[in-house]
């Protein structure tokens, strides 16, 4: 049965802030900008809007690619300009009380330290709760590679948290 077409504005309204949160979790320095650009690219490919599932998959993929690119650029810029401050993490607000819990913060720090591909797999599998197939499609890699990255990431996190005081 064909899926009814969803107007672009409705897609934006429904999914923009979710994409911003995804970009934030993937480490983008300007998650709103990443999400905005992803939607602009989607707008150009309006035929995808006929299938909202395809549109959503496209947005996720776009956000993942852009966040990875931003992270790479940020790391290169930091190497060149050692005085640049680290991107601040939001704190001191009611919503961040949970993040300020030390065990949660410790786990997030460990995730931040993972290679970006492993981090992406964890975010898509455990936060968005995508299947291995959906994660593979979003990242443009094989299902076996998703499994391998997930396994290595969990092992690395386990070691990091076990070793920390």
């Amino acid at each position, binding site marked *: 049965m064909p899926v009814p077409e969803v107007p672009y*504005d409705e897609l*934006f*309204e429904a999914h*923009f*802030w979710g994409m*911003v*949160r995804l970009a*934030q*979790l993937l480490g983008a*320095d*300007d*998650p*709103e*900008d990443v999400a*905005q*650009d992803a*939607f*602009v690219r989607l*707008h*150009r490919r309006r035929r995808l809007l006929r299938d909202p599932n395809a549109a959503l998959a496209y947005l996720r993929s776009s956000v993942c690619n852009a966040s990875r690119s931003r992270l790479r650029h940020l790391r290169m810029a930091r190497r060149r300009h050692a*005085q640049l*401050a680290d*991107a*601040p*993490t*939001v*704190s*001191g*607000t009611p*919503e*961040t009380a*949970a*993040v300020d*819990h030390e*065990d*949660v913060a410790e*786990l*997030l720090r460990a*995730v931040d330290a993972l290679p970006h591909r492993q981090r992406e797999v*964890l*975010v898509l599998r*455990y*936060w968005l*709760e995508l299947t291995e197939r959906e994660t593979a499609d979003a990242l443009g890699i094989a299902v076996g590679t998703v499994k391998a990255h997930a396994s290595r990431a*969990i092992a690395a*996190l*386990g070691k990091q*948290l*076990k070793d920390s005081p």
Partner: protein
Amino acid sequence: MIDIEGRLKEAFDARAATVRPGPNPAAENRYRVHRATRRRRAAMACAAAAAVIAVTVPMAVSGGLPDSHVATNRAADALVKKSGDPADFTGAPAPFEIPTSASGRLTPVALSPDGSFLGRIGQQLWALGPRSIAKEAGVPQKLFSAVAATSRISATTLATTGFGITPRARVFLQRGLGASASLTCSVTPPATTGMAGGVDGIDPTRPVWLDGDHLVYAEPNGGATRLLISCDRASFGQQTGEGGATWFDKAHAIPVALADPTLFYLDSTNLTTLNQVDVNALPPGSGTRHVLDRRFLPAKASDVGRTWVAGATKRTFAWVDGDSLNIVDRTAREPWTPKTIRPIPKMSGTGQLTVGDHVIAYTVTNARGRVGSFIYNMRSGKRITWPGRVYAAGDWLLWQDGGTAKIAKVR
């Protein structure tokens, strides 16, 4: 055994919850879609024209004609197209172009009514003024080497107007860890007891206001809006009740402009009313407001600090409300009747309004660092849109022109 997989969802949810929805992303998206469409069509038109030329004039190119020069169009990165030139508002002498240094180009960030101004060169903050321009051949006086506050790490930071300069004082905001920032204010010549102190605990999402001897800033997380009577060491950074520091209850007062000694603020419970306070009449440490005057705004202020911004001098109070610029002559006897200039370019981002004796400049910076300005001459009624920062104060105008900065007196 640590159940990491079980904890990841909770940890990611906690971090995702730190994303705070901002105002009207749909409007920003419509603007971006429109811009992308326009660029694509322009690119296609150029490609088509180039294809025609390539087909019809191959011999001319090989015959040694000079290559066509495609100038870098900085306006393509701006929020508005150029329409007019700020120099059109200025008189003799000709605009002075600030020399760039080996460290990079200067980005102006604040202008004083006496023509002195602050500018960033890389990570350094510099102070310049007519005196240094005249006598030192434009060599700027280095003010601080510390990292200047403005950063495009986040939209929150861009909402901060973190710089101020008056004939005697300079102020700048420095981001700290997380959402905190510190404020440093100095006076010149230095007070006999020493130079400025810093104040921690500034809300970096709110502007700071500096005029005359008064400095206004807001504390983060629901703290008070503080007003310092003087920027010198004697009272700067003083706590509640000491040395002339006083404050407003932040729950109600949103400062929007300062024209010493009048502070303009909105009441967050009533955004249709503009309040004015004589800061000299405020008893220190009490939080008491002595409202001089209340004026009704033609429309409720919304998105204050972004698309609703204000500025004032002793003679003028002005505000931008989305696509209109509203100007009030504060010295007029008749009831407060704003003059409305509409439409002004709709620019999505964080706005700043600076008011001079005869010129008003409205500059918007978006999340990607793109800038656009609308300039209005109150005497001639002439309007200019400019793809760069513009500041007006006293009878001076300061603006970015491509990779340089220029300053001149308004005629």
